[in-house]
């Protein structure tokens, strides 16, 4: 699979002088101001405070030294894990509420990573809660474990729903396993995930009818119900009210669909008041094209050009059933969008200089970001064949205008050229100060893994490596 055009040539260096030989008429806009990590830290702090607040009632209600005997200890552990599970479930729903606070200060990518980690923990907490309570109650009453489970189902209020909720969560946890998730079509997986709302509803009752801390009326019960109300409000705001406002304000429509290569299209959108759109290059929106066959699916795509007040553009590679339909979208089609979201932007940089590594259609967010980075950035663009190089005219132009170094690395993964570039010495040779740069990565998983390994070997701290991954 060696390609004849394998080469690492094509280096274009930006002008070293700030405004070069060209007239400085279109002065490139200054780099976007930075946005610090304050918002994200506040969210993390809130999370831990909430966790303490969730378990505190148990701690205060339980007299010290009262847990002698294994049955009492098991039941107590079951109560703790139950409170933790109840809290984590709310956190999970809240994180998926698409609130601007999460989407733009923590970043949708990071939030989805949190969602996965918290999800695994939640699953374990739910199973631990269930088994500890059943075993604990069985030991207290001197019954068999199965008999106790039957009694819980038959005699206790709301327990059938609670068991069903646990079953749903286990099922969802299984579909979260990476291998299985890959095997499922995204659409099916997405709709299965909606069942988690059912789990929240089914699990609601038993916390209050059988929860030792939540049954008696008082501040704890009120607070717990208030937390539920808050999460539902956040969900309504993030999923209904905010998108409604956004779309009524901007009214996006498809202006044009342009083929960029054999399997990639750019979709240009226009709308109203786009100059007031708070959009950063590298951010993405969730798009719903209101055309027959497409309207019921929403997909995240990055914009492939920074906000310019006149139009938006997304550049999409045709891979699935949905993206194939996008080629046939007609001009004038209304588009429902949610967002923008993401911290994969120039505003979230830590260092003054950046190295961007793109693979294939992963160039889209990086192309948009290039317009907003400070001068002196570098871009390594991996593509399989010369035909797969997208937007290269724009990239060349940006290299000129913004003093960016651009390298096109074309060839198959196993060719010596690409292999040499994407290794620690190769990276250091191209970008000698790589360890002092932010590195933005976007591309297929294989490339991302290989690059991260090489970058780490080249001495780039982990926190300076940013990934744009849409897997959720």
């Amino acid at each position, binding site marked *: 699979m060696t390609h004849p055009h394998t080469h690492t040539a094509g280096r274009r260096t930006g002008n070293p002088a700030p405004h070069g030989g060209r007239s400085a008429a279109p002065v490139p806009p200054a780099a976007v101001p930075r946005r610090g990590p304050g918002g994200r830290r506040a969210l993390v702090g809130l999370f831990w405070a909430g966790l303490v607040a969730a378990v505190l009632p148990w*701690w205060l209600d339980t007299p*010290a030294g009262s847990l002698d005997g294994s049955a009492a200890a098991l039941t107590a552990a079951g109560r703790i894990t139950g409170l933790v599970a109840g809290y984590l479930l709310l956190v999970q729903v809240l994180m998926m509420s698409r609130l601007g606070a999460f989407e733009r200060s923590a970043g949708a990518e990071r939030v989805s990573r949190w969602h996965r980690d918290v999800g695994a923990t939640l699953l374990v907490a739910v199973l*631990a809660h269930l088994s500890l309570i059943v075993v604990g109650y069985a030991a207290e009453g001197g019954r068999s474990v199965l008999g106790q489970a039957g009694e819980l189902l038959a005699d206790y209020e709301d327990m059938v729903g609670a068991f069903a909720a646990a079953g749903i969560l286990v099922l969802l946890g299984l579909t979260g396993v990476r291998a299985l998730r890959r095997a499922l079509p995204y659409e099916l997986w997405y709709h299965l995930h909606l069942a988690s709302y059912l789990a929240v509803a089914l699990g609601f009752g038993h916390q209050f009818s059988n929860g030792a801390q939540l049954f008696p009326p008082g501040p704890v019960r009120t607070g717990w119900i208030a937390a539920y109300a808050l999460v539902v409000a956040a969900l309504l705001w993030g999923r209904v009210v905010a998108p409604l406002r956004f779309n009524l304000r901007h009214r996006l429509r498809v202006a044009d669909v342009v083929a960029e290569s054999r399997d990639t299209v750019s979709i240009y959108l226009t709308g109203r008041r786009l100059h007031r759109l708070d959009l950063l290059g590298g951010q993405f929106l969730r798009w719903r094209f209101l055309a027959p066959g497409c309207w019921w699916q929403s997909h995240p795509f990055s914009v492939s050009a920074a906000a310019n007040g006149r139009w938006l553009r997304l550049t999409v590679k045709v891979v699935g059933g949905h993206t194939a339909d996008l080629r046939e979208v007609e001009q004038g089609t209304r588009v429902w969008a949610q967002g923008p979201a993401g911290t994969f932007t120039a505003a979230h940089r830590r260092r003054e200089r950046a190295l961007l590594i793109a693979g294939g259609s992963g160039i889209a967010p990086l192309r948009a970001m290039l317009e907003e980075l400070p001068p002196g950035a570098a871009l390594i663009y991996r593509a399989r064949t010369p035909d797969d190089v997208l937007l290269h005219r724009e990239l060349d132009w940006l290299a000129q205008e913004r003093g960016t170094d651009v390298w096109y690395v074309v060839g198959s993964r196993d060719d010596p050229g690409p292999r040499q570039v994407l290794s620690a010495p190769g990276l250091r040779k191209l970008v000698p100060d790589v360890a002092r740069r932010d590195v933005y990565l976007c591309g297929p998983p294989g490339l991302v893994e290989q690059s991260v390994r090489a970058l780490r070997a080249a001495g780039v701290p982990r926190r300076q490596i940013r990934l744009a991954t849409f897997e959720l």
Partner: protein
Amino acid sequence: MRRALLAITGLAAGTTALVVLKGSPGAVQAAQGPPAAASPSGGATPSADRATLGAKPRASATTPAATRTPTARATTARPTSAPRATTAAPRATTRRVTGPVVENEYGNVQVQIVLSGTRIVDAVALELPQETAQSDRRSDQVDGRYSGTSGQVVQRQSADLDTVSGATATSESYRRSLQAAIDRAR
């Protein structure tokens, strides 16, 4: 994924630590917030569980003529010495004697009996576990079976009552509080 594993380990370790901290008898008693119900039975019995049955009656005996309802409506404003005196009186003077608070893992039980002479004419549960809807229901069953002017307490005139199935712990606590009240009355 590594972080998820860390979080799960943290969950297990945290839960165990909390249970151990609360469970160890030598633990600091400071953090006893809201449940004021634990205090009436006195600091003498910090660990009240069915495992320490033997210790319980002694503890309740040491508590002096505790918890008498001051709102006793009929006669007997006379406190402790009254019981013996009234045995002689044929008149139906009723008095109320309250048993100690007995704790179990579901909550507290406290029984009050109404005596006419030496005869128990009524039994009231002042306190029963209502921690959850389930324990609430069990308590209702126990209360319905034992208490009242025609309940088992009045029928049998003793603390020798049938255990309510499914509510063993609460039945047991009820009998203990009742027995202590009867002892106190005679």
